[in-house]
């Protein structure tokens, strides 16, 4: 008796059910991955986006000659004797006057009103005055940083309840801040300074920026690119195309694969021992950071370059040799151009990995608090020799601080880092598409 095709037999049913189950597992796995990704991005964005806005107080500040330039000759040497401590009361008075002018009443003492202005503001004004002594004696409009607490209030980080327990602010100050905002004196703007300013001390999170970290990361990437790409590509070409197959090349191959799996902190210790202790390069410098990251990136680049070279069909090599090209000509004229997209992608992925690497940098001292831009061109130790920090290390550094404003900035730094990585990956995809050729 033959079975009808219209009824499914038991075996087929079982097979179909198994297939359905497998599809469901796959779909479930994808869903879990997507949900985690969305959750991750959501939490990073919600915690960090605030730092891209910053609260400023617009004030007309009188710069009295009597206090800022006692000599009256605009002599910079005399003027620079007035420290930020001398400037702070001027700003406080300006804010108090502004509050009075708007007819706002508050129980706050003048000193507490002054606390609404960031400690950094005095330095900003002082720098402006020293750069342009003619300002003394005039009234100048400044956009001054509001203190971290006031900034936090407008971002929802600080509330009346938390302010009541806080030495640095009070619920009354928040009320006044809200009134000033309604009057247009306080405003919240996009925070370009976040990408420009260097790090700031624990007391003034509102002034902390990623400037030095971005510069340090860029310098390190430059070092990595200039060293790892040529060394990596040259060694892959040698190993893949020229080296005889014997025990030594096998050994080298195995070791390169092993190096790719070595924890990055080991490279940090190596860098500490070789570059800082033995070669006596500067601690915390992008040069040392770049060298360590180069060591770490090399295996990645070598492995991906070799894979790219391997994927070039041997018929192309035969064709080149067949018309009488030398081994080197066949590699450089034919194999390398075809492998270029793969090499580029590998390199950029290696760079992206290096950009996000933290552990080895901690060991070579890049975790230091860097308040100043590296004095690149004037420095004896050269463009890459001055102390700097790096993006992921800055994140680590900021999460260690107690003020929640730094926490917010750490997440903003994470967003910045992710944006850099996205850009690099986009470039990798673009280059791949552009140079990919079919054969």
């Amino acid at each position: 008796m033959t079975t009808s095709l219209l009824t499914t037999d038991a075996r087929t049913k079982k097979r179909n059910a198994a297939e359905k189950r497998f599809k469901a597992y796959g779909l479930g796995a994808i869903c879990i991955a997507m949900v985690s990704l969305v959750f991750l991005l959501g939490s990073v964005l919600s915690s960090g986006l605030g730092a891209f806005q910053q609260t400023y107080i617009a004030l007309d500040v009188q710069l009295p000659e009597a206090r800022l330039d006692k000599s009256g000759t605009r002599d910079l040497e005399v003027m620079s004797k007035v420290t930020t401590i001398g400037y702070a009361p001027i700003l406080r008075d300006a804010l108090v006057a502004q509050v009075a002018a708007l007819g706002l009443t508050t129980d706050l003492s003048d000193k507490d009103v002054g606390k609404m202005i960031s400690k950094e503001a005095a330095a900003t004004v002082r720098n402006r005055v020293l750069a342009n002594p003619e300002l003394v004696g005039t009234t100048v409009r400044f956009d001054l940083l509001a203190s971290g607490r006031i900034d936090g209030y407008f971002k929802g980080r600080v509330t009346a309840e938390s302010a009541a327990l806080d030495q640095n602010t009070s619920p009354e100050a928040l009320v006044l801040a809200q009134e000033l905002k309604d009057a247009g004196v306080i405003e919240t703007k996009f925070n370009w300074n976040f990408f420009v300013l260097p790090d700031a001390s624990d007391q003034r999170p509102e002034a902390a920026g990623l400037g030095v970290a971005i510069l340090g990361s860029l310098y390190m990437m430059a070092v990595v690119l200039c060293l790892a790409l040529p060394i990596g590509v040259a060694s892959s070409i040698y190993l893949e195309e020229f080296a005889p197959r014997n025990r030594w090349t096998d050994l080298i191959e195995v070791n390169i694969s092993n190096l790719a799996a070595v924890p990055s902190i080991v490279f940090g210790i190596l860098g500490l021992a070789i570059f800082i202790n033995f070669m006596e390069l500067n601690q915390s410098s992008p040069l040392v950071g770049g060298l360590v990251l180069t060591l770490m990136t090399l295996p990645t680049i070598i492995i991906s370059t070799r894979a790219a070279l391997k994927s070039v069909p041997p018929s192309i090599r035969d064709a080149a040799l067949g018309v009488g090209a030398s081994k080197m000509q066949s590699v450089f004229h034919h194999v390398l151009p075809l492998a270029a997209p793969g090499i580029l992608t590998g390199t950029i992925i290696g760079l992206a990995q290096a950009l996000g690497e933290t552990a080895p940098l901690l060991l070579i001292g890049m975790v230091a608090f860097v308040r100043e831009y590296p004095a690149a061109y004037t420095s004896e130790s050269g463009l890459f020799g001055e102390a700097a920090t790096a993006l992921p290390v800055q994140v680590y550094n900021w999460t260690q601080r107690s003020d929640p404003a730094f926490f917010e900035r750490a997440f903003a730094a994470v967003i910045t880092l992710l944006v850099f990585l996205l850009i690099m990956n986009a470039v990798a995809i673009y280059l791949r598409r552009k140079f990919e050729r079919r054969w």
Partner: protein
Amino acid sequence: MQDNKITARNVQVYYGDNQAIKDVNVDIADKTVTAFIGPSGCGKSTFLRCLNRMNDTIDICRVEGDIRIDGEDIYDPKVDPVQLRAKVGMVFQKPNPFPKSIYDNVAYGPKIHGLARNKAELDEIVEKSLRKAALWNEAKDRLAAPGTGLSGGQQQRLCIARAIATSPEVLLMDEPCSALDPIATAQVEELIDELRQSFSVVIVTHSMQQAARVSQKTAFFHLGNLVEYDETDKIFTNPEDPRTESYISGRIG
């Protein structure tokens, strides 16, 4: 009697411990088409690749014996294989144009060997080679188009044009038609017949009909031995060795 272009004496080829070619002696005449036939794995391609030292690229391959082109030992340590390959061109089984333009494909050989002093000369070489390979009429309007965009038969003719652009003296062809349809095959065969005017052509083929059509001399290989080597007519009508007869009548292989 024509001059012998290539003489091979007692050639042995080993892949590691395996002997792929045993004691082959063969004389290949100038300006003739010589076909190598035989079942798969009989060593005919291996022997062909000995003639321009393409086997050098295989690490475990070892060649012994004496192969001379124009009386010169090509395995002499003084011989640079690169120079040899300019003299002995090769066309492969699968069409393998470079992923570059048609023009660049043909011009590559002359460029690296410095055969053209200027662009005009190079243009001339490219045109001449494409004409010889019967591709000029189809390709002249699209020289800048990628060679990989051509059809299979055109690609193979492009590879032939590329091989003859360096003006070799011997042209080795390793089953040049195995990836082609009958029409493209016919074109390539016609081409091989014309190329005989200027080169000595050695062709490896699986198709006995093809060997009969294009060659003047045929060598039959079996299990690494050169069983019989004679005029093509004689091999196909009156072979001396029983193995040759079995093969051409379809009983082995």
